[in-house]
C-alpha cells in the first residue's frame, strides 16, 4: 500500500517533472482499486522522494463484485491483507497514477526521461509468494541492488516463522520508466493472486510493460505464468510473442477465463504436492488401463465408477462402446459438474446421454440406483474413506448394490519405500486416511469375500519391484464361486 521513489541525481527534484506530480501538494486520485495519495516527504535538489499510498476500502472490497474475480475465498473476508499489503492493487495504481512516466516519454525533459537516475525504491509489505529469495531473483537481473527483509508473522510467536511479506528496498541506476514498469509487472507476479479477472488484454499489458527486459529475464517463464494467472493458453501466446513469433498474435484464439479457476487449480496442485512422486510414466494412465483391462476380462457391460471425481475414467469408459451403461457417482456435486463438462454432455447426442448417468451419491450410503450392475469400480477411493466407515462402504457396495464384480485399486504402501522424497510413514496424498501394504489389502479383501460371497484375484499396476510389488494394487472381486 506504500511505495516511495527517491532520486539523488543532481537537481533531484526534477523527479517531479518526470512523474508529472506537483511536489508542493498532496494529490488524491480515485481509482478502481481505491484512493491513491501522492505526496513528497522531501523534495530538494539533493534528494527528492515521491510517495504513493493506496487506501483500499475494506468494506467495499467485500461488497464490490468487481473484486471477486480472483481469489474469492480471500477477498470475501473482511480480514484481508489487501488494504495493507503491496500487491497487484498497488501495481494497478502505479499504472494509472504514473502512466506517462511509465511510458518513458517526456516532452519537456526528453533526455532526463531517457537516461538513468540513481534511484531508491521502497515498497512496504510486499506480498511475496516465494519469499525474499524470489524477490532477489526477480529484481537483481534487472540491475537493482535488493534489500528484502522478511516480516515475522507475529513477533510474540517466533515459532510461527516469517510471513509471506517482505519490506523491500531497491537501489540502482535505472531509468524511471523501467523502474515503474518493473514494479508494475513484478508486484503482481510476487503476489501471485490477481484481484481482477484476467482477460486477453493482459498479454498486451505484459508485452508493453515488459518491453526491453522481460524477454531476456532468467525468470521469464515464472513471470509470464504468474502474471497471466496460470492461464495456459495465454501463457503460450505470451511465450510465442516474447520469442518473436508473430503468428501467435491472433489473441482472439484464447478466451476470457476467470483467473479464479486457474488459481484454484494451482492451489489444489500445491495441496497435492506430495502426490508428485507418483507422476512418472503417469501411473494414473496405467491405472485406468488396468481397470479397463479388468472390465474387459469380465465382459462387463454395465459399469459404475464410484467416486468418479471429474471423470477421468468415465472418458475412457465412454470411448468403449461395449460399455452400454456407464454410471459415474461422486459425493461432490461440483466434481460431477466438471465430469459433465469433460464428457461434453451438454452437446452429446441422446444416444450418448442414454449410456451415461452422473449421480451424486456416497459410498457410505446405500444407493438402489447402483443395484444389479455388471461391475462397480472403486479406483483410488477406499483410501479416502476412514477405516471406521469401511463397514458402511462394504455393506453398500458389496451388500446392497451387489454387482457381479467389483474392482478396487489403492496405493501399495510397501512400494512407498521407493519414493525417496516421501518420508517413511507418510502417505502419498494429504487426504489419504491410510495406505495399505499388500498384506493388509489382501486381509481386507479376504474378509469382504467371506462376508459377501465374492472371490478375489489380485493384479499389479505399474512397475513391479521384486520385493515391494507395484505402486498401485488392484483387486478384482467376482460374485459367487468360480473365477
Amino acid at each position, binding site marked *: 500500500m*506504500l511505495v516511495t521513489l527517491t532520486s539523488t541525481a543532481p537537481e533531484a527534484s526534477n523527479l517531479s517533472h518526470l512523474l508529472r506530480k506537483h511536489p508542493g501538494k498532496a494529490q488524491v486520485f480515485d481509482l478502481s482499486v481505491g484512493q491513491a495519495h501522492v505526496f513528497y516527504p*522531501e523534495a530538494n535538489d539533493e534528494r527528492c522522494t515521491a510517495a504513493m*499510498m493506496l487506501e483500499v476500502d475494506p468494506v467495499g472490497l467485500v461488497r464490490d463484485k468487481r473484486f471477486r474475480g480472483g481469489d474469492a475465498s480471500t477477498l470475501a473476508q*473482511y480480514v484481508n491483507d489487501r488494504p495493507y499489503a503491496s500487491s497487484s492493487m498497488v501495481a494497478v495504481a502505479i499504472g494509472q497514477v504514473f502512466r506517462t512516466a511509465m511510458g518513458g516519454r517526456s516532452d519537456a525533459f526528453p533526455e532526463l526521461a531517457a537516461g538513468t537516475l540513481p534511484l531508491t525504491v521502497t515498497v512496504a*509489505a510486499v506480498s511475496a509468494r516465494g519469499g525474499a529469495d524470489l524477490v532477489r531473483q526477480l529484481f537483481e537481473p534487472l540491475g537493482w541492488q535488493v534489500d528484502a527483509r522478511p*516480516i515475522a508473522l*507475529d513477533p510474540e510467536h517466533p515459532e*510461527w516463522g516469517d510471513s509471506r511479506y517482505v519490506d523491500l528496498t531497491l537501489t540502482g541506476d535505472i531509468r524511471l520508466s523501467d523502474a515503474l514498469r518493473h514494479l508494475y509487472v513484478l508486484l503482481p507476479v510476487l503476489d501471485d493472486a490477481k484481484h481482477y479477472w484476467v482477460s486477453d488484454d493482459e498479454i498486451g499489458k505484459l508485452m508493453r510493460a515488459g518491453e526491453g527486459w522481460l524477454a531476456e529475464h532468467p525468470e521469464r517463464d515464472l513471470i509470464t505464468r504468474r502474471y497471466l494467472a496460470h492461464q495456459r493458453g495465454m501463457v503460450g501466446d505470451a511465450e510465442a510473442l516474447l520469442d518473436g513469433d508473430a503468428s501467435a498474435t491472433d489473441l482472439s484464439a484464447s478466451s476470457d477465463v476467470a483467473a479464479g479457476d486457474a488459481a484454484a487449480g494451482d492451489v489444489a496442485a500445491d495441496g497435492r504436492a506430495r502426490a508428485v512422486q507418483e507422476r512418472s510414466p503417469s501411473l494414473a494412465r496405467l491405472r485406468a488401463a488396468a481397470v479397463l483391462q479388468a472390465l474387459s476380462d469380465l465382459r462387463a457391460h454395465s459399469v459404475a465408477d464410484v467416486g468418479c471425481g471429474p471423470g477421468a475414467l468415465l472418458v475412457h469408459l465412454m470411448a468403449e462402446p461395449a460399455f452400454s451403461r456407464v454410471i459415474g457417482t461422486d459425493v461432490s456435486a461440483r466434481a460431477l459438474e466438471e465430469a459433465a463438462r469433460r464428457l461434453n454432455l451438454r452437446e452429446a447426442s441422446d444416444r450418448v446421454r442414454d449410456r451415461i448417468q452422473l449421480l451424486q451419491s456416497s459410498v457410505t450410503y446405500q444407493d438402489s440406483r447402483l443395484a444389479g450392475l455388471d461391475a462397480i469400480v472403486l479406483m483410488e477411493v477406499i483410501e479416502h474413506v476412514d477405516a471406521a466407515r469401511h463397514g458402511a462402504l462394504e455393506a453398500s457396495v458389496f451388500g*446392497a448394490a451387489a454387482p457381479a464384480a467389483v474392482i478396487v485399486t489403492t496405493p501399495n504402501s510397501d512400494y512407498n519405500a521407493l519414493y525417496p522424497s516421501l518420508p517413511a510413514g507418510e502417505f502419498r496424498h494429504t487426504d489419504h486416511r491410510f495406505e495399505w501394504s499388500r498384506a493388509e489389502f489382501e486381509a481386507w479383501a479376504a474378509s469382504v469375500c467371506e462376508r459377501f460371497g465374492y472371490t478375489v484375484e489380485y493384479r499389479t499396476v505399474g512397475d513391479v519391484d521384486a520385493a515391494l510389488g507395484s505402486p498401485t494394487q488392484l483387486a478384482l472381486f467376482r460374485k459367487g464361486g468360480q473365477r
Partner: protein
Amino acid sequence: MSQHTEPGSPETTVAEHAAKPPLALPDMSLVLLVGPSGSGKSTFAAKHFGRFETLSSDFFRGLVSNDENDQSATAAAFEALKHVAGQRLRKGLLTVIDATNVQPESRRSLVELAREHDVLPVAIVLDIPESVCVERNAQRTDRTFGASVIKRQHDQLRRSLKHLGKEGFRKVHLLSSEEEVAEARFVREPLLNDRREERGPFDAIGDIHGCRSELETLLGKLGYELVRDAEGRPVDAVHPEGRRVIFLGDLVDRGPDAPGVLRLAMGMVRAGHALAVPGNHEAKLVRALQGKKVQTSHGLAETLSQLAGETDEFRAEVERFCRELVSHLVLDDGALVVAHAGLIEKYQGRASGRVRSFALYGDTTGETDEYGLPVRLPWANEYRGDATVLYGHVPTLEAEWVNNTMCLDTGCVFGGKLSALRWPEREVVDVPAEQVWYEPAAPLGRAAQASVDERDPGLLRIDDVLGKQIVETRVFGKVGIREDAAAGALEVMSRFATDPRHLVYLPPTMSPPATSKRDDLLEHPADAFEAYRREGLGQVICEEKHMGSRAVVLLTRDPGRFDAPDGWRGVVHTRTGRPFFDDALTDAFLTRLDAAVSAAGLWDELDTSWLLFDAELLPWSLKAGPIIREQYASVGAAATASLPAAVSVLERAASAGIDVGDLLDRTRRRSEDASAYVDAYRRYAAPSQGLEGVQLAPFQLLASEGASHLGREHAWHLDIARRLVDADPDFIRATRSVSVDLTDPASEDAATLWWEELTGAGGEGMVVKPVAGLTRGTKSLAQPGIKVRGREYLRIIYGPDYTETRNLSRLRDRDIGHKRSMALREYALGVEAIERFVAGEPTWRVHQAVFGVLAMESEPIDPRL
C-alpha cells in the same frame, strides 16, 4: 356393510325403488363413470363429486390440444389423465374418471391403474335410454357426432354390463333410468382396514400357534383377567384399564390347543376386548373348513384333529371368524399398522389382492431356502414409513425394533417365547414357552441372523438425505431442507464427519441481536434483552462465551448402544461433525472426562450409560491454528509493517509543510486499530500439546439414556458443569453466568456492566438464553441463545478497521432475519435428532435430522453473523 376390502365377488346394486338408501363408495377408490355420450356424466359428476375429484377426458383433450372435441388428441389426453389420476391415487384420493368408458379395453387400463395403486375400481353405470342421449347431443352445438355414434356406444355399454365384475370392478352401481340418475345419492365409506379412530392402549401379541397356556400366562402378565365359561374354559379376558389385545395372526396350527386359543380370541374380539388380523395359517384353515383340498402340513393336521372334537357350530364360527378378518388394520390416527407379515408403507390403508397377500405372507420371492422355507425379502430393513408396523410371521429370537417396525413372533410353539408389545408405551412383555411344542424346520432366529448379515438396518440410504427432504419436528413442525443444500452437505458428511451412528446431534447456528444503534458498537446486550422481552420472557441468563471451538461430546460406557466396538468411549466432534482428535487422543480425553463424571456421581444419579454434552473446547488454536497463522497473523503482519511506515512518511511530508489533510490522522488510527486487532487474535492462540493445555467447558447436558434434557433450566445444566469442574478443575472449565430479570432495569444494567467487564478484559462476549432452556415465545419457539460479541473481538470478524465510522456505518446494514430463522430451524432439527435418538428410533431417522442441520449450514449466509 359390504365386504369391499376383501376379495370376493363384486357387489352390484341395482337401484330399483324410489327413496333408496345412499350408494356406497369406498374411500380409496377409482370411480369410472360408464355411459354413452349424452348420458349426462359430467352433470352427474359435478353434482356428486368435488371440483378436483373428477378428471374429464373432454377437459384433458382440451388441455393437450385446445379443443375438447378433437378426437385425434384422445390418446394424448388419456395419457395425461392417467398420469394425474395416478398422482392422486398415490395420495389415496378418491378419483372419478368422466369418460364414456363403454369399451372393455378403455376400462381395462383404468382397472390396472387402480390395481397399481391398490385402490378399488368402482363403476357407476348411467344406462339411460339411447333416445335421450341422442336428443341431448343434438342440442349441443359443440358436438358433431351423429346418432350412429351414440347407438354404437349404447350397444357397447349393454354388452359390457354383465362383464364388469369379471373385469375387476369391486363395486358396480347401475342407474338404469333418468329418475334413478337424478335420485342417486352416495355415501363415502372408510375401508374396513381404516380403524384410525381406535387409539388403544393396545397389547399386540405375536404368533400363538395353539399355545393356549402361554397365552393365558401372558394375558395375566399384561394385567388381563380371564373370563371362563361353565366348563372353565377361558372365553374372554378383560383389562381393568380398558386395554385391548391385538392378535397378530397365526392363532392356530402346530401347537397343543388351537381350539382353546380360538375360543378365547374369538370371545375377546366379540366382546370388543380385542382386535385381530388373519395369519396365513388362518387363511389356510378357512379353506380347509370350507372343504377345499389343502395340504395339511405345517401343523394344520393338528388343528383339524383338535377341531374334530368340537361342535359343528364352533367349527362354523371359527370359519366365519377367520374368513371375516381384515388383512391389516390402520390404528391410532394412522400411527400404528398391524398385519401378520408386516406391510410396506405404500400398501398401508389400501385394498387389493397383493396388499392382502403381503399382509398374510410377506414379501416372498417364490424361492425356497435350504430348509424348504420360502425366501422372504427383509422389507423392514427398507422401511421408512411414519407408521409403526407390528407383525409376526417369521420367528425370531428377540422382538427388536427395525426401522420403526417390530416382529413379535418369538417362536413360542418352537420353544421360544410368546411376546407382546404395549402400545403406545412400546414396551415388550413376554413369557417363555412351556416346552418345545413343535420342532422347527430351521433353527430359530435363522431368518433374523441372515438378514442382519446381508443388510444392516443401521445402513443409511442415499435417499434418506438427498433430494428435497422434509423433517417433521416435534417443536417446530415441518422443516424443509433444500435439495441443493442437502447436496452440498453430502460431501462433508461422507468424507469428514464422524460415523452417523455416533452423530446424534449438531448444534444450531446462533444469531447475534439486532444491530446496535450505539455509535461505536455493532452489538450490545440491550438488544438481546429487548428481543427476549418481545418474546414475552421475564427471565434470561447470560453465559460467558468461551474463546474456543464449539464441541459436542458423546461419552459412553455402553458402546453397544452406538453400535460401536468394545472399548469405544464416544466421540468429540465439531459443529460440522468432524472429530477433533485422533482415536488415541479422543480415548484419553474421554477417559479423563469419564473420571470427572464418575467423581461427580452423574452416572448413578442420571441412571445412564451415556451422556451427550454441548460444550466449548479450548483453546481455539487447537482447531483453528492454521487459520490463526495463515489468515489472522498474516494480515496482522502486513498491517503492522505497512501502516507505521506510512505514518512515518506522512509525518515527514507534514513537517515539510505539505498539507496531507486528515490522511495522517486516519492512518495513525488505522495503525492503532491494527495493533488492537493483533491483540484480539493473540488471545485465541494458546499452546497445546496432546491434551496438555486443552480444556472443556460444558454448558449443557443435552441428553442421557431415556431423557432429553433440553427442557431443563440452564441453572441445572450449569450446576452439572460446576460439579464436573469441582471434580477436575484443570480439565473442565466453568462457565460464568449472570441471571437477568427483564422487568428490572437495574438487573439489566448489572448484566451489561458484566458484559463490558468481560469484553473489556479481552473476552469474546456472552450468550443470552431463556432461563428455562427450550422455551416458546409469543409467536413461535424462542431463540435458544443470542450471542452478544465484544467490540474488540469483532475486529477479527469484521477486520481491523471496522470501528472506523465510515466502515461501521456500512457494516450496520446486515441481514439478521435470515440468520435468526435459520438458527431456529437448525435448533428444531437438533432437538428432534436428540428426541429421536433418546426414543430409540432407527439410525436413519436420527441421521435425517442431523443431516438437516449440516445441510442448512451449507446455505449461503453472511459468515460474520
